[in-house]
């Protein structure tokens, strides 16, 4: 295990590395984590956590390969090169969903969504008012439609914070967040829910009563006004100075660049 904690703050970190380090901090020793398609930031975060503060974080790669040993982040986060040398293939129809639905395991889930609204509802289904006649057909809910409803703590990551991806109200809810806010999620009988949104500008969380999204920390050099400008709904004005997101240490950056993702796959998620 590297001496990542006593390492000085990185002086040449990039935004992808900051997001990865911030997401990694959400996962603790003994947690189980799984990833889906095109999930370079979560995969790198799980891997970084395992190399630093959470060596016993269990990783279920692509939701099929338990404790894999890939040599680097490959071009796909779902294909065989990611789950090479697994200790077990988890049969996806039965076992994966048994583990995920049971409630004891895989209690945290990382979500990427084309649209995310102020109450943390996600949309990967359609853009437009009519589901059956969409303006844009998105890929579809896949596992998100389940993960939002079965008590998981949801961690959204968004490498392209803009008014089209962070919207007042999603066109269609394909991942349940806090629904209409307040107690609506709890009233629907749903446990868990969105915890954090980590973007390329800031970290957001949800007000404990209203469940409205709010800025929890600003990345270095980013102002609240910039975040507001890039957000499709009004953010609550900060009552006190907003903290600055911690930058990754030099050692964390080295681990990401040299060990985890030397081919820079993680950058493919940015600038879209």
């Amino acid at each position, binding site marked *: 295990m590297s001496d990542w904690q006593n390492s000085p703050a990185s002086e040449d970190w990039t935004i992808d590395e900051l997001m990865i380090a911030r997401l990694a901090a959400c996962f603790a020793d003994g947690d189980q984590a799984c990833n889906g*398609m*095109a999930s370079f930031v979560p995969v790198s975060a799980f891997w970084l956590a395992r190399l630093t503060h959470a060596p016993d974080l269990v990783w279920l790669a*692509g939701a*099929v*390969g338990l404790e894999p040993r890939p040599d680097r982040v*490959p*071009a*796909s*986060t*779902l*294909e*065989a*090169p990611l*789950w090479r040398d697994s200790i077990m*293939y988890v*049969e*996806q*129809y*039965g076992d994966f*969903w048994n583990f995920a*639905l049971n409630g004891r395991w895989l209690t945290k889930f990382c979500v990427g969504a084309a649209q995310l609204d102020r109450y943390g509802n996600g949309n*990967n*289904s359609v853009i437009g008012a009519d*589901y*059956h*006649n*969409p*303006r*844009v*057909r*998105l*890929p*579809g*809910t*896949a*596992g*998100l*439609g*389940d*993960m*939002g*409803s*079965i008590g998981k703590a949801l961690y959204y990551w968004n490498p392209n914070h803009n008014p089209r991806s962070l919207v007042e109200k999603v066109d*269609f*809810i*394909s*991942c*349940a967040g806090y*629904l209409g806010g307040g107690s609506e*999620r709890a009233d*629907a*009988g*749903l446990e868990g829910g969105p915890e954090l949104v980590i973007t390329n500008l800031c970290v957001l969380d949800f007000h404990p009563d209203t469940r409205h999204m709010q800025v929890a920390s600003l990345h270095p050099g980013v102002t609240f006004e910039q975040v507001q400008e890039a957000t499709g709904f009004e953010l609550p004005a900060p009552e006190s100075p907003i903290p600055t997101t911690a930058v990754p240490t030099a050692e964390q950056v080295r681990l990401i660049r040299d060990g985890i993702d030397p081919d820079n796959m993680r950058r*493919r998620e940015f600038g879209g």
Partner: protein
Amino acid sequence: MSTEKLTTLEEAAALVRDGDTVAIQNMATQAAPMALVRELIRQGRRELGVVCLVGGIPVDWLAAAGAMSRLVGAAVSMEQFGLCQRYRKAVEAGVIRVEELSETALNARLGAGARNLPFLPTRGLIGTDLIDVNDNLVMLDDPFGGPSVVACKALVPDVALVHAHKADRFGNIGYEPTALWPDLGIMPKAATTVIVTAEEIVDSEVLRANPDRTVLPGFMVDAVVEAPFGAHPTSFSPRYGYDTAMHLEWIGAARDDEAVAGFMERYVTGPADHAEYLETVGGTERQAALGNWEQT
């Protein structure tokens, strides 16, 4: 005596009729029965309903060929190669109707179909808009007094198409060690007719040596066809990786109607059979490169 199931791609694909609901094994860029999909397009099948967990290039080709009018599935994506643009266009034009399900809801619909139940419940999807737009999903009170669940109506596909590593001529299907996606675990069990392509047809003795790797029994399988590299251009772990160059060529072509027509003629409708297809896409040299998982 076991029943002979070995046949040709042409005859196997002829078991699929216009209008059928066809479950197709596929996880984004993985494990799709592509030789069968190409043959369905060659035979000019129409109005198919396609059932996929995560559909990739087979869905885009079927959409491009005008072969499908319905999609039942959790997602359609070629992951790193992006959205399936021909499918997307067809949905946006109202040509393909989509029944979008979460993974547990799709598994529940197929599971109910397999077990001859009217429905199976899930706790997924509650709070989403996907329930309201789908007549096959209904909120249901727990008869034992617990929280409500979503009843997912049984789905019995007319046909399931699956690709495997090994099969004997009687339709017993063997898988080499790899990830098992839900397609294999439930689609063939729910479907009325099951068609399997295999990398190689082997003597039954080969399957007897590792019966724990036999994933489908011959009595469930209606037709089996030998199709080496039958999942190309998707991957088929552990034997070969996905064909990056061909996926890129496709997404380039998919932007333009004329280029799509040229691509389909060259790779799908043009080659007389599977052997000619394999030659067209690069023959043994290309196969060796894919066997090394290059560019993945």
